[in-house]
């Protein structure tokens, strides 16, 4: 067996130095880390980022919300400062596993694990979030869509750490939603999910619309055609009628144990319609 290391730095610099020197698996809340290694010996170096301090878990600065790598789903749920645009992400948070998962699992971990069924990603896309990556080389940010490469793959370099998710907040009134379709009530992997954020003008016309669908493609996808069609429209329940099959072009659903591709294509339309209806309510 190869000798392997465990390192749990308490500051970011130590973590980045370690990453630059060695190859590491990053460990945060462990809720994807351990299940992925069930029944296999641990033979890797593990960098545990859970003790890095010096950052508030959720903070607001310069028109941007910052969700640090420590922020768990429970932290998000409990934060009453977050504006309505986060309602959808909060709803997703309540549907990630059970409470014992939400208490430890991080939002950054959900993104980095890059599962096609990650419940956090549609709303992060809809929030237009940026990923903050740090290394000894410096800091860079990437939009979510440019960060996730494919099924369980990201564009994070080996020497980088995801240090935060950054969510712009224009201060405009916004509404957001998350709808998850699963085959049981709790602890369920999504068959399809939809996350959406709409920003509204004073007269309740839609000024920006971002709608994303998960579990229907290797990486959750926004639906630009649908989004464009919404801009300038007034928020009302009739919006649901706009949803059309052609909006689904970016999706490529597959058959798996949770449902057929046909079913997904059918169900996503319903979820989109319901999302719009809810947003207008």
């Amino acid at each position, binding site marked *: 067996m190869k000798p392997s290391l465990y390192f749990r730095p308490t500051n970011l610099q130590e973590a980045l130095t370690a990453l630059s020197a060695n190859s590491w698996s990053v460990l945060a809340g462990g809720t994807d880390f351990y299940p992925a290694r*069930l029944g296999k010996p641990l033979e890797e170096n593990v960098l545990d980022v859970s003790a890095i301090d010096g950052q508030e878990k959720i903070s607001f600065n310069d028109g941007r919300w910052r969700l640090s790598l420590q922020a768990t789903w429970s932290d998000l749920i409990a934060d009453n400062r977050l504006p309505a645009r986060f309602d959808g992400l909060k709803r997703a948070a309540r549907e990630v596993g059970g409470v014992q998962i939400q208490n430890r699992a991080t939002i950054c971990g959900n993104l980095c694990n890059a599962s096609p069924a990650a419940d956090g990603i549609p709303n992060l896309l809809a929030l237009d979030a940026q990923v903050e990556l740090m290394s000894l080389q410096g800091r860079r940010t990437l939009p979510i869509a440019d960060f996730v490469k494919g099924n369980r793959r990201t564009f994070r370099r080996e020497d980088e750490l995801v240090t935060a998710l950054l969510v712009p907040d224009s201060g405009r009134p916004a509404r957001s939603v998350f709808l998850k379709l699963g085959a049981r009530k709790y602890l369920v992997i999504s068959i399809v999910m939809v996350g959406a954020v709409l920003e509204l003008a004073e007269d309740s016309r839609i000024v920006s619309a971002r709608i994303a669908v998960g579990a229907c493609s290797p990486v959750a996808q926004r639906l630009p055609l649908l989004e464009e069609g919404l801009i300038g429209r007034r928020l009302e329940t009739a919006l649901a009628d706009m949803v059309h099959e052609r909006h689904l072009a970016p999706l490529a659903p597959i058959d798996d144990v949770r449902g057929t591709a046909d079913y997904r294509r059918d*169900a996503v339309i319903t979820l989109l319609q319901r999302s719009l209806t809810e947003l207008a309510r």
Partner: protein
Amino acid sequence: MTQQSIRFTVNDTPAEVSVDPLRRLADVLREDLGLTGTKIGCNAGDCGACTVLVDGRQSCACLVPIGQAAGHAIVTVEGLVAKGQLSQLQQAFQDHGAAQCGICTPGMLMAASDLLAQTPSPSEQDVLDALGGVLCRCTGYRKIVDAVLSLGKTTAAPVSRNAVVGARLPKVDGLAKMTGAERYGADSWPADSLVLRAIRSPHHHARFGFGDFAALFAAHPGLVKILTAADIPGQNVFGIYPTGKDQPVFAEGYARFRGEAICALVGDAATIAAIRDDEVPVEWETLSPLQGVEAALSPHAAQLHETAKGNVLIEGRLARGDVDAAITKADIRLSDNFQTSFVEHAYIEPEAGYARRVGDRLEIFATTQTPYMDRDEVALIMGLRQEQIRIIPSAVGGGFGGKLDLSLQPMIGVAAWLLNRPVRCTYSRPESMASTTKRHPASIAITVAATKEGRLSAVRFHGDYNTGAYASWGPTVANRVPVHAMGPYHVPAVYCTTRAIYTNDTPAGAFRGFGVPQAAIALETMLDDLAEKLDLCPFEFRYLNALDKGSVTASGQRLDASVGLRACLDALRPQWERLRLEAADFNETSRHLRRGVGVGCGWYGIGNTSLPNPSIMRIGLKRDGCITLYSGALDIGQGSNTIMMQICADALGVPLSIIDLVTGDTDLTPDAGKTSASRQTFVSGAALRLAADDLRGQILRLANVGEPGRFALDGRTLRVSDGVTDQVIDLARLPAAGENGDVLVGEGRFDPPTTPLDADGQGIPYATYSFSAQLALVEVDIELGTTKVLRIAAAADVGKAINPTQVEGQLHGGVAQGLGLALMEEYIPGRTENLHDYLIPTIGDVPPIDTYIIEDEEPLGPFGAKGIGEPALVPTAPAILNAIRHATGARVTRVPATPDRLRAALRATGRYEAAK
């Protein structure tokens, strides 16, 4: 990995361990700190059995590296007891009957503690949300919800401290389940134990050979032995039936299913964990697998077992009347085909135990439903005499039929014997799912016929049951189903045939109902079709045809007593009428949600089908005036320990406090058969009554008192009275009679009276039957194909409820499993080998359940009791499927009715469009 010293507190006590910091907190608690109250059901976050508090917040101990515990406060179930007293929460669980097997109880208690610390008077929704991450397979959750909700309230649980039959006595063995002290298969092992891990076939069908093991031994000095088929001292074969045993302990060059053991590694724990499966040198030659019965029955299919031509293991048959003529003559006849899936038992406790050699004897401590059969089978495999084997069952964390077959017992037995060292083993969740038995998938063709007045005239049924790679309980299923397939109805002409078919799938065995739930899905759906065509109320249609006292069954058996189906339906009728109206009202105004109400009925013959099925029970009286109940009737969570104590106390007329229970150790208890087929209350309970009568008789004879004599025990003083004179006997002066220091020993044996069935399946297959009927109210989202069960009303004729709380518990648990069967459970070998791809109902999926206990006493049963374990489950799936049909018009002929299947069925009705 280098070890680090890590400090934290556990239950307010400082702890320090020097371990690999990536070791899971759950492992450290259990293995390093001896706190085995924290359970491991999956090691993947899916079951919540390992839930502990980290700084007050519920967390899965299987997902927390011990390195992250440094400096934090951990609370486990062991920390809930204060000053030797159960906490209020624990007491509420005990009083409400919220634990059956108890393996989920620590996790439930911890999740609930977190909730109650934050929200002292939670709403029901709060409870569901907080406990949503802990799975329970036994209770159907409702009593757990009640227990947690009771904390904010003053209403006490309806508990009786009285031991008499009919009382709501809390579980006599419940305390240890509340405190974490209970010892399940993985909770106890000798300190110097080696660890065993099986290596299994990754292929459904393959030939294989081993390479040279030398390199593996050289790379891993802690590896002590690699066991293969060559190491088996006796026969490398086991199986349920005395003839036709076909399953090897280790495959010999030929693997018939994915998950079949080919060899096992034995060594110290760290070494065994460090060896990757692919380090073991195996050459595989894959063969094309026969998956599903269609493949196995094709004329070109390979023959998987020498003795089974065409891969047919066995056929079952029942014929009564001229079914063809009856179908032709009937006013209406309908036919269809049905398909069910593999269903996994998903007990939260994976297989676990240890074995050790004691002189020329072998002791096995393991989780099991059938210690005596284990003993006999292990003896054959070991080449030892039965007396040389001692089976000490651990507490069982759920069975449902899945722990009737041998699993790890022979492997650890052989290893411990050969190495003369204790050897332990715990299956991982994927290993448990891939290698142990399942519910048989059934392919059913059925025709039903009736008169226009609504009298059933005929049922023709054929079921092919996929028994997987080995026979296991396939013959039982093939024989039981033909007797039950026409349902609990009077049907003059019946022709039922079944086959158990070998395939390269996971072996199918015993699972709550032995094939009957599958048959009921087909029949009960067809009954609704008939009712619809005949324009009859489906409920009254069933009532009209229901078996009743004096009815003759399709096997020609006259039922003279205890036929409570109509009473069950009578109890449900008011709800039926009300719920049907409410559903119609709801549908008037609802757009995409539609509600419906369905009914299903079931019956279940108690015990073996036409085979001897005896139990022996023993009661001893000691010099100090204490009674010992020697009960081999194994409690797997269903509560037979409590039932037997109640029967014992009541039959002897003594208080519970003077009875000691010795249970399920093949050295200490007589053979009470297996815990299956809903038989323990009826068969072992009846044997126990006889044992009590025997002991009573001996006591009276001791004093030369005839009936109706009475006795009372007051310490060592025995008072016997014939109503006129009292006699006082000093027990301490009597000579010991039994080997356990008993001065008197009463024994009872009961074998339910049955007769063999003839070639047409005619005879008396069972001494008695339990009956049940259920209603389901569902809400279907027609656009998404999802189904929410809103309410279940469950009635069951159990003869006599020895303990009503436990009968309700069985009903709730059966309903939850039936709901899973109907809507979500589908085991696909190689694809759903974990508890996130294989879905069982969570606390949010099981609706409120109304229970109606019908007591139509069975003269043969103890105090009139029959069984309830399986009849609880049979009607649930049919009721749900019929409710879906009532709500939407969609008929479901393949279960589970997953959202995609139901959506397809909805669209097939032509009433619902594709989304656009």
